[in-house]
């Protein structure tokens, strides 16, 4: 089983000031999580967004100029770069910080869809509680957070899904196998959007589309993430032993409110990666993938067809059915979770073609469309009414007292895997079978002895020396459980590291 995780950048507003300062608000929101003052611990070594999986390093990113301008504008602030980032590692192994003026919650690494859903929902609660504390300080409910991907004025922010992949799989094989799948994945994973827009240019109200991000896809491949966004991001930042692993970093996806949509978004992608590793992915080559993303998104009737390089034309559902069929042939019986995913994937494609009313409460774009059309009938308004974009935004409000999706959830009209208890447990603890859970245990037990921390390494202080827990190749679930057990019971991290080192020596 491979590992996966989700990073979510939240939209943030504050309504008691004429113009919100996004740098300060995002930073203060993250810091509202803390009971004590912020201490810099995050280690940025190993983060290099210019390294490209195609085998080279770019000299710059398209966002650099804009980032430089923001840096100049932000230079007068009494905060350092690290103050502004306010990078935290939480007791569940998640990362919570200010990324490009958006509070970002990155789940700990997960091995099962069930854990991922709990950790993703835990993120919603963590950011909500931070907003509630911030609002207490401000004396009113002024700060609001949105789990979406657009401001309806041409500014997008991401929800990235990440997968651990063997470095033995050639990158061109990943590209060939994934692009047609990702272009059409929005029929399942799209969050729905009222209107159309483009990067930093005008919003046109009216047309309802499947995806929030499709309008912002401008390239097939690329290392950029803020401009000229690609269908398949080529950033080569494995956060693991580079000789053995890649981290597939997908930026095309929408932020989902529906647990079912999150489960299928990540679950079907995991199955397609399994297919690619076995050399069993369908051989499909789209003629114009970037145009196809937009074309398919703007067709909620799912009738549009896109041209393949061999001249054939396929709809989004037909593309997905090709992958689903291949996965069923190759992966059926692999494990219980794969079988569940295969069955649900087939069912959802069938229902999208024949009776999508069955998917309300399961797929975001279907649920949102149903909500908006119900409202339009009640209020006798059309798709070009600006009220609909506001309702679209409010669908994603993470406050259960205000959010439209969470209103449906409170009415028990949506499909759920998680329970409130499971989410609360995920707020406090990471998965017990991944290094995310181990990272969390280290934070819970030895926070004051952590000198620096990041995805693949924790550096503890102790005496004159520093002591490293290297997790760059710690992916076997039994090894992880053993290491967690050691850190759970050791008197100090130095003792734990000695015991862990001894155990590994005995095994070799």
């Amino acid at each position, binding site marked *: 089983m491979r590992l996966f995780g989700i990073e979510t950048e939240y939209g943030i507003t504050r309504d008691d000031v004429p113009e919100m300062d996004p740098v300060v608000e995002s930073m203060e929101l993250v810091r509202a999580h803390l009971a004590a003052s912020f201490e810099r611990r995050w280690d940025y070594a190993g983060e290099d967004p210019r390294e490209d999986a195609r085998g080279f390093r770019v000299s710059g990113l398209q966002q650099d100029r804009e980032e430089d301008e923001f840096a100049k504008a932000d230079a007068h602030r009494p905060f350092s770069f690290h103050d502004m980032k306010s990078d935290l590692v939480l007791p569940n192994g998640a990362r919570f910080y200010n990324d490009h003026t958006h509070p970002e919650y990155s789940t700990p690494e997960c091995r099962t*869809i069930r854990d991922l859903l709990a950790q993703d929902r835990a993120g919603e609660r963590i950011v909500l509680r931070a907003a509630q504390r911030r609002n207490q300080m401000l004396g009113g409910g002024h700060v609001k957070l949105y789990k979406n991907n657009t401001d*309806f004025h041409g500014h997008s922010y991401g929800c990235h899904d990440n997968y651990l992949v063997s470095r033995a799989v050639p990158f061109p094989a990943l590209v060939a196998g994934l692009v047609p799948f990702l272009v059409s994945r929005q029929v399942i994973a799209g969050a729905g959007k009222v209107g159309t827009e483009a990067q930093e240019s005008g919003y046109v109200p009216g047309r309802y589309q499947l995806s929030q991000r499709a309008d912002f896809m401008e390239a097939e491949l690329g290392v950029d993430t803020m401009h000229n966004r690609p269908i398949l991001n080529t950033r080569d930042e494995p956060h693991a032993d580079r000789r053995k692993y890649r981290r597939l970093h997908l930026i095309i996806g929408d932020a989902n409110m529906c647990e079912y949509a999150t489960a299928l978004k990540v679950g079907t992608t995991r199955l397609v990666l399994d297919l690619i590793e076995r050399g069993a992915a369908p051989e499909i080559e789209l003629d114009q993938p970037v145009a196809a993303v937009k074309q398919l998104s703007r067709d909620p*009737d799912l009738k549009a067809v896109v041209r393949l390089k061999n001249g054939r034309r396929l709809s989004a559902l037909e593309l997905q059915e090709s992958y689903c069929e291949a996965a069923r042939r190759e992966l059926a019986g692999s494990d219980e979770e794969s079988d569940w995913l295969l069955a649900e994937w087939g069912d959802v494609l069938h229902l999208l073609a024949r009776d999508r009313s069955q*998917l*309300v409460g399961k797929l975001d774009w279907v649920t949102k469309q149903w909500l908006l059309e119900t409202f339009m009938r009640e209020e006798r308004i059309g798709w070009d009414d600006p009220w609909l974009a506001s309702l679209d935004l409010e669908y994603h409000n993470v406050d259960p007292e205000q959010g439209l999706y969470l209103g449906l959830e409170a009415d028990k009209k949506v*499909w759920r895997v998680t329970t409130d208890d499971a989410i609360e447990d995920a707020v406090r603890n990471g998965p017990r079978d991944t290094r995310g859970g181990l990272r969390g245990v280290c934070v819970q037990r030895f926070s004051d002895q952590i000198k620096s921390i990041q995805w693949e390494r924790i550096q503890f202080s102790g005496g004159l020396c520093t002591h490293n827990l290297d997790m760059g190749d710690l992916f076997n679930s039994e090894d992880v459980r053993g290491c967690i057990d050691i850190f759970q019971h050791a008197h100090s991290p130095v003792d734990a590291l000695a015991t862990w080192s001894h155990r590994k020596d005995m095994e070799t």
Partner: protein
Amino acid sequence: MKHSMMPERREGPVDPMPKSPRPLEEGGGPRRPESGSPDKDNLMKRMRKVDPKQAERYRQRTGE
């Protein structure tokens, strides 16, 4: 985009009742939504409270 230019739209669902999915694993699977329409009054009330100009005011910096 004007309303008249919109493609023909299939009627949206009016009575959402997703069927019961299979469990993800033993020991507790997904819970089936309760049958029947959502409480339309509550939901419509919540939707009507949304300021029609809210999206117009909503501005973010570009993220990733």
